[in-house]
């Protein structure tokens, strides 16, 4: 059916002019002259997070979504230029506090690559345990947000209840519930006792048991399947074209995981599979992450079974003692990276994170730190998945992507 414009004087709504919206006024007028209208979702909307989505709807169907991110931009990259390398470790964790260990690991590996530091085996195993614990925690967090976006409050409470065990495990291993800052160039801060590792080993079984309850109430719930199935579909080609990363790329049928492609730490020694789905809809994006939780639990168990005894800090950093406790700043405060550009890829919970450190060779602060978080990388794919869906599906697709504005804005 052809659409005709009626030439009547159109007055765009007041808020479009007063709220500093990043769209030209012509676009607004053109929207209002056709039969569409603009819905501003956020930043105070309960289902938007810290961002604004400018949704152009035709009846109930979404025609286009323009994101307006940046409400939680904290200048991580700029602040990093004025701090010592060692002081940046707590900073780079802040974009996504539940996924702290993975971001921490990416940054530290860039420094290690520059300085050619060999990390002891035991430290590598403990790093992997921390990273996988954080991955499970993030997936549970995202599952909780997804369920509350669909009005399922029980599905919100259960994963947070389960995540409490992850926090407990991190607390006994490192002393804090999240944002551990435990991984430092050359190893880890302290050795973890074998009894503590045994405790973490038992916690993985507790998590698995509680996940079965969650599966009954939420994952196999008919209303949940009805809401997520065939919604927000990204085909394999689209997912590659828009640069989607992480579990959301794997949900579209692309078998890509940095942990397999360019293995770091001890991922190549562990036995695990990449969970992949073909549908590319909201439900498969959710299921891929649920399966990743199972894989991660399995990985943690393998790590604890195989962990060797030995040092936890490289002798290039700390020559005398076995541990760096008490001499952290003496050993690491004045490290200077040789001139050059050092890039690492890390598989965070929500996808690939890119760390680039540019050093001028003379100063003890980075010349430039580039941090590309997964949220920022898949924002485009997320916006494309929304096109052609109903307005009620906006929150379901949002939850299925687990988009986290603080992580994307950095």
């Amino acid at each position, binding site marked *: 059916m052809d659409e005709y414009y009626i030439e009547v004087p159109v007055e765009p709504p007041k808020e479009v002019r007063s709220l500093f919206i990043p769209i030209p006024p012509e676009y607004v007028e053109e929207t209002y002259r056709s039969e569409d209208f603009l819905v501003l979702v956020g930043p105070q909307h309960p289902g938007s997070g810290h961002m604004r989505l400018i949704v152009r709807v035709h009846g109930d169907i979404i025609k286009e979504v323009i994101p307006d991110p940046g409400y939680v931009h904290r200048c991580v990259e700029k602040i990093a230029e004025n701090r010592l390398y060692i002081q940046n470790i707590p900073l780079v964790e802040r974009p996504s506090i539940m996924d702290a260990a993975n971001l921490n690991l990416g940054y530290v590996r860039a420094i290690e690559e520059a300085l050619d530091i060999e990390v002891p085996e035991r430290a590598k195993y403990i790093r992997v345990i921390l990273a996988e614990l954080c991955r499970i925690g993030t997936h549970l967090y995202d599952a909780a947000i997804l369920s509350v976006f669909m*009005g399922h409050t*029980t599905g*919100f409470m259960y994963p947070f*209840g389960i995540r409490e065990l992850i926090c407990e495990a991190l607390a006994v291993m490192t002393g804090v519930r999240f944002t551990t800052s435990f991984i430092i160039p050359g190893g880890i801060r302290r050795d973890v006792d074998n009894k503590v590792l045994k405790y973490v080993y038992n916690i993985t079984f507790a998590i698995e048991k509680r996940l079965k309850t969650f599966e009954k109430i*939420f994952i196999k719930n008919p209303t949940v399947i009805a809401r997520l199935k065939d919604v927000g579909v990204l085909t394999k080609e689209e997912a590659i074209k828009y640069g989607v990363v992480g579990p959301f790329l794997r949900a579209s049928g692309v078998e890509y995981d940095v942990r397999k492609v360019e293995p770091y730490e001890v991922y190549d020694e562990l036995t695990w599979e990449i969970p992949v789905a073909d549908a590319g809809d909201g439900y498969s994006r959710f299921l891929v992450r649920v399966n990743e939780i199972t894989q991660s639990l399995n990985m943690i168990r393998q790590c604890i079974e195989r962990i060797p005894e030995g040092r936890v800090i490289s002798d290039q950093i700390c020559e005398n003692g076995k541990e760096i406790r008490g001499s952290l700043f003496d050993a690491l405060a004045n490290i200077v990276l040789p001139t050059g550009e050092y890039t690492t890829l890390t598989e965070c919970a929500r996808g690939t994170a890119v760390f680039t450190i540019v050093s001028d060779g003379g100063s003890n602060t980075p010349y430039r730190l580039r941090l590309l978080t997964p949220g920022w990388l898949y924002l485009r794919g997320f916006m494309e998945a929304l096109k052609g869906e109903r307005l009620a599906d906006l929150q379901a697709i949002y939850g299925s992507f687990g988009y986290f504005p603080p992580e994307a804005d950095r």
Partner: protein
Amino acid sequence: MVMGVIGYLYGLFTSNMMDIPLIKPLVDYLLNIPGINFIVALILWRPFFAIAIAPGLGALMLYLLWIVYFERKLTARVQWRVGPLEVCRPIRGLIQALADGIRYFFQEAIVHREAHKPYFIQLPILAFIPVLIPIMFIPAGKVVGIKSDYAIQLIVAFIALIPITIIAIGWASNSRFAYIGSVREAFMYFAYEVPFVIAVISMIFIYGSGNPYTAVEKQAIVPGAILNPIAFIVYMIAMLMATSRLPFEIPEADQEIAFGPFVEYSGILFGLVMTLAYEKLYIMALLFTILFLGGWSGPPIPILGDLAPVIWLVLKTVIAISILVIVRSIYARYRLDQAIRLGWSSMLGLSLISLVVCAAVRWIL
């Protein structure tokens, strides 16, 4: 002249008074005191008692306090939490809903610039009219406001008026999310109303009359839920849809459109519109009890006299609702098109089957 009118009214009230053996000595004593006797006679006048106390307004208020607390406590128990506890700890937070109501009352009620001001303020109060009118026709034994042979039909008709006020509320708010919410409310109304009416018609057909007394009489041996289980199921789902309980909480989806038609309300006005759905649930559940659960019939309690049927009716209703609220912690929200598809395919089909069932039941009886 005035004394004559008062005397006439007193005579009217005393001629149709509640007969409760338990408090009879007290009532007799109070009726001898001039001045107080008129008030006592008014309160115990059966039509007034039905509308103002039970199963009318008084029971409605108590039910609201109970169901808000019970729903939160039950959901909390399912979700590994404790629920409301801190308001009056010795009774485990039982008066939480009352505390919330008081808080709403002292909050500022903001009227935004774009609203149609008179309608915006009036409509939450006007919305109570279609909610409260059906109470007049709901009998509980001898306690009844208005006796009518078409009481069930009238109740259904007045229930059907409630969504109109909600749509008007959304329209008066003049906001985008309120607009989307009222359109959704209209669509949901469209989805549940036809199966709901057919389910009620099939029950009226079984009982042979729209008179609640006949309906309850016919259920003396077998309750309506067993006579026509399909109508029972259709009515229950329609009740969830009509009061936007969770699998169908579509017009008020707080994560999607932030309470839909009520998005702009605050303070006591929000308190009023928030309870609308609960009140509608109460009315529909009263009708549900009369049609399917044997109404006010129950083991007789001689000492309570006329009060016993009232207690049975309210008790059955509250228990039915208390069982119904558990769906909130089990299901996620359906999409609008899925709910409409459910209403016009499965529910409409089931309600038509229920008509066939009732024809069969009538032939057997």
